């Protein structure tokens, strides 16, 4: 399976992002990894480089509950971007609230909803899905 060029994690849980990045290395998930601790950080990074598809991530793993700008608010900004590149967004959250899952279904930009913890198999599945599309 072809490894991704750039992956992006947006999650305020620093232990989680550390462990997940470790796992990604193990399964050879991506060449480059971007980590942001809330939505606003990510938006601030992405906005100036929208014109340069080669430096935009292929996959975004997005947490929902975050300070300052949460996953939903990030998505609301993100969908406004006109991007010349296919970016796959996965929700990665601890929420089992049906309201969150129902809300996620209304966003076309979201490909899947993963509930934490994330296993190596989950990462493999993501990789497969992205390379297929």
């Amino acid at each position, binding site marked *: 399976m072809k490894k991704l060029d750039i992956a992006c994690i947006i999650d305020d849980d620093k232990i*989680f992002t550390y*462990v997940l990045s470790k796992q990604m290395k193990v399964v050879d998930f991506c060449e480059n990894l971007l980590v942001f601790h809330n939505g606003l950080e990510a938006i601030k990074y992405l906005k100036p480089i929208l014109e340069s598809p080669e430096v935009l991530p292929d996959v975004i793993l997005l947490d929902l509950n975050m300070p300052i700008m949460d996953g939903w608010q990030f998505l609301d900004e993100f969908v406004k971007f006109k991007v010349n590149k296919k970016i796959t967004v996965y929700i990665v959250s601890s929420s*089992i609230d049906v309201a969150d899952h129902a809300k996620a279904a209304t966003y076309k930009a979201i490909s899947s909803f993963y509930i934490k913890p*994330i296993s190596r198999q989950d990462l493999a599945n993501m990789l497969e899905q992205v390379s297929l599309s």
Partner: protein
Amino acid sequence: MHKKLELYEKVTPLAQLGIWQRNLITGEIYWNEYIRDIYEVGPEDYLTLNDASESYLDKEAACEMIEYAISTGQPQVGEFKMLTVKGTFKWVRMRVNTTFEDDQCTEIYGTLEDITSQVSMIRALEEREEKFHQAFDHAPIGMAIVSTEGHWIKVNNSLCSLLGYDEDEFLKHTFQEFTHPDDLDIDLSYMHRLLNKEIPSYNMEKRYFHKDGHQIWIYLSVTLVRDTDGLPLYFISQIKDITERKRSTEILLQERQRLDNIIKSTQVGTWEWNVQTDETIHNKRSAAIFGYHPNEIVANMMNTWHNFIHPDDREINFAELEKCFKKQEKFYACECRMMHKNGSWLWVEIRGKVIKWDDNNNPILMLGTYADIHQRKTMEQERKKAMEVISGQNGRLLNFAHIVSHNLRSHTGNIQMLLDMINHETEEDEKQKMMQMLVINTSNLQQTLSHLNEVVDVHSKGEYSKKILNLHKEVYRMLEVLSQSLRQVNAIKIVEVDPDINIQYDPAYLESILLNLVTNCVKYRDTDRQLHIHIKAYKEGNIVVLEITDNGIGIDLKLHGHKLFGMYKTFHDNNDARGIGLFLVKNQVDAMGGKIEASSVLGQGTTFRIEFS
């Protein structure tokens, strides 16, 4: 003898009596002037016996009478109709007597009177009597002639068929025997007053018994016939069958009584409204619902009643009325508050229907009711309130379950992933690093659990933990606790709390709420300006409101408003922020049955408003 003749000549003209004499031997005739008047002949004329008898329409009868007198010598009298030579019809009475000499009749004489006027009077009387009998016998209503003692003297067919007796049976009884005992005294007393000339006639409704025993209601009209001396002769009674009318009246009365009872038992007030003049008729209950005696509502116009309606409910009430008037709705129905005499507001249901319209489809008459629904409405509102509390609690429980699930899952997920990584890690340094993370994660989990415990504790407290607290005192105690950190940032405190305001609250919660909110003022102050904290309390009806306002950096409520009081929600890049303070405050306020809201302008400051129930 001479004198007697003189008297005779004087009296004869008085009686207008015709006197005649015929000598049968000599043929000599004597007629006085009245004979000539009756026969209408000239002053010197005589008629022969034969000519005279020709004047009588029944000539034979007249001749026969005279022949009989002549042959028997007995005086005779007869009444005859005659036609004079001038063609006038007359009735006359003729008397004839005879003189006999040697067994032979020599002379006849007599008198002749014009009785035309008497006869026609009698004839007229007879005709009238005949007519009366016809009317009496065939009258469609019952008629009877009754003796002054009450005996039936004569009854007509209608009366016979009404009471089921034939005439012979009637005549053996008195009216008293046929009359219902309850009605007899009144009838008899009327009768005596009639006999005593106190009244000219009387009418009454009374009951007779039919021959087969059932009751008959009749309308009786009685007059008394007296003789010329004014002595009572008999009663004439007219009897009309009113059983049917009486029955329908009785049914109507029963119906009305039943309706009255229903209205009474339903406790509704009723009203009738002339929409065009605004005049109304209200029953007693209508006034009683609002605590009034009917006499107390002087100007009984609908306007008076409409003014009882709560100002906030008038618009909807008139809108409903209008719908009915425009025929959009068949009935007018409205629940509204109306002013009771004692000044309180009473929940009332008003219903009505227009029952009369004019030609232009404008309402003329409307009928309706007032029903006191205060108890139902109050219960409804209490139920609604309880429902709100319960669904609020349910919502919070569900929310809490999600919080618990989410927060525990975050930590356990990390632990699971770390353990997995440790198992696969070969480098000792990395393993150690991850072990350390496991320790941090475990202590985070511990902290989360203790936060959740705090929340559970908040909701497990109930009414029993409430104490009467003086808000003024509590605010100053809190400021004392925070005095050091307030002094550090050189904060200006403005307190406007009435020393008389007391609330029933859990002391620990009040302290927590005040500490959290004021600490937030310090945490999120704008370092470019001096911090102002304004604490204000006032009463809004039964509710005590506390407002804590700062001039800090503010919160973007458009962005964060919906999760302002959520757990672990932080909104600023502030290392102190734990996302637990406002969450606890909200839970504490909710648990005490109050409300908390925030308003904020980014860069200007924030106000938290708490309602203590």
